[in-house]
């Protein structure tokens, strides 16, 4: 009977327990995997300027002696948004694979696809914006083949 009541209590407290687990995981991901504090269910909105809209991404097709920037097509907009919000290696790799066949005017087989995620920080005294690399990933294309 007591076991049943305890089980009922735990079930009734489920929303609160889930909130705590999700919010603690979000804190951990923000500290270790650069998850934006605005996302992930940790209630960090309006606490920092480091939200996805203050982050941007550059992708480069790499050839020996040459690095050409490519723009992600609109079809990959959601993938890009996910990579900006939580730039894990797996997510950047998946985006790099999706961009690997983007045509460029250069000759010769590409050797890699590089992705950089940048965020903008503002000087506390002057508010001058400055961009910093948050995460960087290079997909060797030979390895993929």
């Amino acid at each position, binding site marked *: 009977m007591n076991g049943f009541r305890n089980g009922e209590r735990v079930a009734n407290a489920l929303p609160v327990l889930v909130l705590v687990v999700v*919010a603690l995981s979000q804190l951990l991901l923000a500290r270790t995997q650069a998850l934006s504090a605005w*996302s992930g269910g940790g209630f960090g909105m309006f606490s920092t300027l480091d939200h996805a809209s203050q982050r941007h991404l550059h992708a480069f097709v790499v050839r020996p002696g040459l690095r050409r920037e490519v723009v992600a097509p609109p079809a990959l907009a959601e993938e890009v*948004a996910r990579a900006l919000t939580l730039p894990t290696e797996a997510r950047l790799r998946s985006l790099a694979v999706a961009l690997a066949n983007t045509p460029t005017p250069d000759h010769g087989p590409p050797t890699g696809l590089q992705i950089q995620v940048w965020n903008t920080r503002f000087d506390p005294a*002057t*508010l001058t*914006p400055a961009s910093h690399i948050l995460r960087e990933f290079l997909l060797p294309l030979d390895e993929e083949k």
Partner: protein
Amino acid sequence: MSGPWQRWPELDPLDLVLRLTLLDLVLRPVGDWALRFPILGLAAAGLLLPAFLRRRELWAALALLTGLRVALSWPLPDNHAYLLCYWCLAIALSRFARDGGRVLAINGRWLLALLFGFATLWKLLSPDFADATFFRVTLLLDPRFEGFTRLVGGLSIEQIDAARAALERHADGGWLAPVAATRPSARFEVLARATTLWTVAIEAAVTIAFCWPKDRGPSRLRDPLLIAFCVTTYAVATVDGFGWLLIAMGLAQCAAEQTRTRVAYLATYALILFYREVDWIERLANLVDRT
């Protein structure tokens, strides 16, 4: 004299919480088209059909659909998406419980305590919030704050545009010279610092009040503090769906005899709708500009 106001105390407090939650879903539809349609349909059915309002199937389905919305678009959803899912789950569980009102009251109280606790923690952990850089930039860059910045910060549209241009300059790996436009006036600096202090103070106060044991010390201020947070915050930052959820939770943890408090919560719910529908702060700023 008889009328709806005299019959107000007869309105079931639990039904009011459920209706306001469903109204939130109708006024601020969530999810992409595939989820939006069933969520909106269920919410409308619950509102229009009294027999449906307390049905556990309705709330279990809403908890499932709002949870799916979070899971399918993770990590992109904002706080509102998570809170909506937790709250629908709390209501669904209360519909299965023997003392549903109590289960909902406990969940309402602790969800509020914890979400404000984590929000306060994030603000204390973020260096750009603590030194007021967050509001100094946000008040200039975020269009939702433009009316407030003009009215209270005393800046003109031209000053805000110049500051935006300076703040949005882009030089990856390079260096940009400081521009005077990003420090528009001493009054604006005071506003940014006051907004920072007020935000963290009111959120910390709500956390303490909701964590404190009921009917003792600061816990007596739970409702006024939560209402003060909603009245002040959503006047400036129009995040209406989130505000309406906070009110539904606040109402759920109210004792049945707190009729006046429930009226105050309901008035705040209406006020947030007014904030959303009427750009009063912009109109006031325009009026001040003209005089």
